[in-house]
């Protein structure tokens, strides 16, 4: 592990997740979504970002968490991983901060097993909520997200 990681802390389904900045392209408030019928629950739809069509994904069901609502204050975090660009639905984007690697722990048994494959570490600061550091590669390469991909 590196000494410190720059992450953006977002809240998904009342749990704090951290996404490394290098994977984040952009953060924007919820745009107009075009729903896609007949797809799995994690696919919310698609939206137009400056001429590009980007899929909107809610990873909460993937992580075993309850589905998120698309309220007015929700944000979309546009991530690019291995050339795949998708928007992740987040309730709130808290801030951007640097996490000390000393406080990063390996995920242990009291972490939900659904979340486990998708996180790389757990950041626990004293008296604060633990922040699950998302492993974006495993998320983006997961079966659930690649269901409708071909070629």
């Amino acid at each position, binding site marked *: 592990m590196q000494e410190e990681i720059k992450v*953006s802390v977002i809240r998904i389904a009342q749990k704090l997740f951290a996404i490394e900045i290098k994977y*984040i392209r952009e*953060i924007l408030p919820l745009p107009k979504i075009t729903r896609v019928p007949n797809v799995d629950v994690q696919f919310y739809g698609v939206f137009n970002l400056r001429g590009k069509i980007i899929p909107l994904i809610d990873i909460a069901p993937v992580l075993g968490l309850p589905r998120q609502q698309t309220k007015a204050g929700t944000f979309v975090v546009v991530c690019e991983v291995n050339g795949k660009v998708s928007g992740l639905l987040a309730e709130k*984007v808290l801030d951007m901060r640097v996490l000390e690697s000393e406080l990063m722990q390996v995920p242990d048994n009291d972490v939900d097993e659904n979340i486990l494959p998708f996180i790389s570490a757990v950041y626990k600061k004293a008296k604060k909520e633990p922040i699950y550091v998302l492993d974006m590669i495993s998320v983006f390469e997961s079966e659930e997200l690649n269901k409708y991909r071909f070629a």
Partner: protein
Amino acid sequence: MSNDIRSLFTKISVTAFFLFLMAAVAVTFWQFNKEQERLIPCKYNELSLIGTAYVQNLPLDTLMAVEKGQLSPAELFTALQKHTRQFRLKYEIPQTVNLKILRLKDSESEIIFDERSPKFAAKAYDLWLEMSEAYKTDRETWHFEKRGQTARLSVIHPLKVGQKMTRLLILSEEDLSGYQASLPAIFLPIGVVALGAFVLFDLILFLLLRPLNRSFKFVLESLTRLRDNRSLLKPEFTNRYFSDAIYLLGDLQSRLETVHDIEKVRAEEQQQIKEFLRIVTAAAEGDFTVKASVTADALGALSDSFNLMIDDLSVLIRDVKKAAGQVAESTENILGNIEEMAKGAVDQAAQTENITELAREMNELISDTNESAQKAAQSAQEAREAATRGSEIIEKAINVMYAIRDSVRESMKQVRILDENSARIGEISDFIAEISSRTNLLALNASIEAARAGDAGKGFSVVADEIRNLAERTNTSAEEISKLIEDIQKSVTLTLRNIEKGNREVGKGTHLMDGAGEALREILEKVKVSSDSATNISEATKDQTKFSRQITISLEEIAGIARETADHAQQSKEAAARLEALSLELNRAVEKFKLSN
């Protein structure tokens, strides 16, 4: 044998017995007489011979001597006696033959000689026709005489001396009764025969009567059965007697049955009539709940009519009862009313007394009223002045109220403007907040880009950070502003509310003022009215005095009428009491009728 037949048989037997007996006796006597008569010719011959012999044997000269009266009868007797005795012996004349010599007289005969004793001489003897005949015809005659037990046959020989007939007769007599068989001896065979005949007769009678008895018993039995209303027996033998009667018995039985049926029917009818009588009696005593049973015959029709009659009567009596009850009620009411009337009249009289008193008091009051009226007029005037002053003050107060209301309206307007402005400020601060959040986002994106640019973007990331800080500060300030605006708005709203409340109070106050003004005006009016009234009163009191005098006169008249009314009430009361008595009687009379309700 039945009793009757037996008695008949007995009677017949007894009668027959006696008849037979009498016949036997008669036959006996007849036989007796026959025998006697048979004896007569036989003995006549004998006696005739004896007599003739005697005649021839007689010493005629002795007799002539007697005739001439030469010999006494006693001497004659002794002479003849011897002669006769000799004669008797000679010819063996039985002792039963008695010889006599009689002299024929005119109306009698005299015994010259009787061989029995001398004392018979010169005794009178019967004169028989045969004697005269014998004397006249010179022929012997005979005479048979039955006297008691003796049956004497006398043969009369005339005596002829020479050729001359003498008046002497020779009698040869014999009592034939000796020769006769005794009556019992005759009777015995005859009696036996008669008895035998009687027995035979009885037997025949018995045999004849037996079938008769049988028939009679049958008839008796049938009659008994008829009486007991049992069925008749069939005659099991051929009845020779009473066959018609027996034949008729059958008819009689059917007749009797008919009669029996009729009797039954009549008995039923009687029963029905009795029942009906019972019901009628009950009804007569006043029980109208009874109902006669209706049957199909004439009595049933009668019962039906009777029921109808009872029903009608019931209805009638019910009406009467009702009417009686109503009459009783009405009389009660009347009595009550009359009582009240009488009481009322008395009250009236008392009241009129009171009223007269009151009238006098009224007069006094009138004069008092007059004084009071004047005082009232004066007070009214003072009140009027006070009221006018009061209304002026109120006018002023109202004006002040209006002024307050105008100023309040003004301040309200200003406050509303304030409210609007603060709302506008709020809007703007919201806008600023949004801008700052956007800026924040932008800063975030910028830092992301900077991170992605790596080393080259370090300076940029600093700038991005600064922008973010700025945005945050702006955000904070905007929030503060927003909060302040909120507070201002809250105060403004409160102020507005208070002002409105004050406005409402002012409105109320004005209202009250108006009300007060109205009230004062009314007071003014009333005062005027009152002072007018006071003047009227003083005038009126003068009239009142006049009227009160008239009232007193009328009251006295009323008292008189009340007294009359009381008298009339008393009379009516008496009449009503009589009416009540009558209605009680009526009720009592009707009470005894029990009706089926």
